[in-house]
């Protein structure tokens, strides 16, 4: 396969994906239905929707952290489980999920330790990643010595150490204050531009989705499905001027209206959120 063909092929492809969760008492609940979505190489795509629309579930399906009830998920032209085993993606969660007992550089090194890479190459890669997220001076610090934003940058560096084709981010800046969040948004865009990676980004925030994305996938709840895909044609590189431009506000409005059209939130949203949580916790045993 030539490089051209590689870039034409969708990097993530979901077809007829459905996800049901089994509830106690034998009932099932449909979290996602009729999901068809192709992501092009190098795209920045946000998934946005009311809580309980299954956007996190969709992200976890792409990462093979949960499996679809029906339909197919392919990543890099392979079934999602194979892509996971091939380490084709890096994952960033809402919490940084750093290991407390490891210093910053040891946390970033963790994925490489699992591959048994040669030490010198490994250390060089870790240093490179810390440069990328602008934390080289904090290599020897422990996570508790860093601010929330810095911890999340370490998590991003760690997710990128394998040079994966895809970066999956699940509300990564949801716990940060507005100022830090905007700074992290610019940071992520810079990293995306430097690495050419494909990003799938789950968020609650309309401004964040518009500022970052090439496309915003708008979802609705009960059951979770894609209602609209909004192309964001704001010029790049994007910065402070972008956030203050007229076109930006138009895009924000467009996404907001798409969301309003799809909004039918109800009690089941909370239910799905709790089912998703329970499922994640089931992984412990």
């Amino acid at each position, binding site marked *: 396969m030539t490089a051209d063909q590689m870039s034409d092929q969708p990097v993530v492809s979901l077809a007829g994906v459905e996800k049901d969760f089994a509830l106690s008492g034998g009932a099932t609940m449909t979290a996602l239905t009729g999901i068809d979505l192709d992501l092009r190489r190098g795209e920045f795509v946000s998934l946005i929707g009311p809580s309980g629309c299954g956007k996190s579930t969709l992200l976890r399906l792409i990462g093979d*952290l949960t499996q679809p009830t029906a339909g197919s998920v392919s990543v890099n032209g392979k079934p999602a489980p194979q892509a996971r085993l091939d380490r084709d993606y890096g994952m960033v969660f809402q919490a940084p999920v750093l*290991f407390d*007992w490891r210093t910053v550089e040891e946390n970033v090194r963790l994925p490489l330790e699992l591959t048994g890479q040669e030490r010198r190459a490994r250390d060089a890669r870790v240093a490179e990643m810390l440069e990328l997220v602008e934390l080289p001076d904090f290599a020897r610090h*422990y996570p508790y*010595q860093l601010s929330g934003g810095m911890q999340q940058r370490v998590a991003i560096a760690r997710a990128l150490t394998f040079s994966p084709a895809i970066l999956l981010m699940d509300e990564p800046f949801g716990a940060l204050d507005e100022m830090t969040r905007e700074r992290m948004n610019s940071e992520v865009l810079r990293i995306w531009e430097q690495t050419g990676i494909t990003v799938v980004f789950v968020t609650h925030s309309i401004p964040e989705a518009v500022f970052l994305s090439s496309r915003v996938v708008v979802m609705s709840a009960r059951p979770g499905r894609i209602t609209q895909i909004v192309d964001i044609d704001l010029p790049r590189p994007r910065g402070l001027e972008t956030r203050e431009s007229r076109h930006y506000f138009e895009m924000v409005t467009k996404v907001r209206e798409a969301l309003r059209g799809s909004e039918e939130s109800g009690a089941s949203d909370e239910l799905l959120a709790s089912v998703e949580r329970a499922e994640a916790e089931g992984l412990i045993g």
Partner: protein
Amino acid sequence: MALLRHNAPAIVVFVGGIALWEATIRGLSIRAFILPAPSSIARALGENWTAGYQILPAAQATLQEAGGGLIAGALLGLVVAFAVARYPSARDIVLPMGIAVNAIPIVAFAPLANQWFGSQSVYSKMAISAALVFFPIMINVLRGLTSVSASSVELMRSYAAGEMAVLVKLRVPNALPFFLTGLKIGTTLSLIGAVVGEYFGGLNVALGRVVVESASTLSFEVTWAAIVVVSVVGIAMYLAVLAAERVLIPWHPSVRGERVA
């Protein structure tokens, strides 16, 4: 110097307490068999350090028994915790049994242990110590191995990490502070096991024997001296675990203190 200033209040209270004790005994003429004065305890300790009751060699023997019991109990606790964490079905068998066994006052088995392992042997005391130490280590390590966050496990899965890698990179480091907590509890218990084991016969030179024999001859200053030495041994063992914590888990909230970034 800073260390001295930091600990000054504790030192003042300790020394003041001893002085008050001494003054009370002298002032109220309390008889030695009820509560001896610190000065007479110190004198008894000096007189019986290597001669008489031989407190120093006795302390060495007791430390050996408690230390051996601590190590044996910790190893056993670790093995069972790893096995139970690995095979969740074993949890339903081992845990109820463990809890039931833990409810038995194990020191009551001391005379039996003497019977099984020989009353003159150090192993009978180590067995009692080990039995006491086992449970807190096992429960703590098991909790440490299993109480990893769901997202940490997902993170490892996203790196295609196998069960072994999850154990080595995530569960074991997560369990280390729990193990050290179990070990701290274990130091005290191991000493209790050894001393109580000695009450029921054993080596002639051991702190438990010193307590029993001095009390039976109404030499209570010596009894008190032995108790003081038991306490010192216990504190020393505890401090050893604390020192290990500083080296092994400098990142843990219990250790890192006020260190700033």
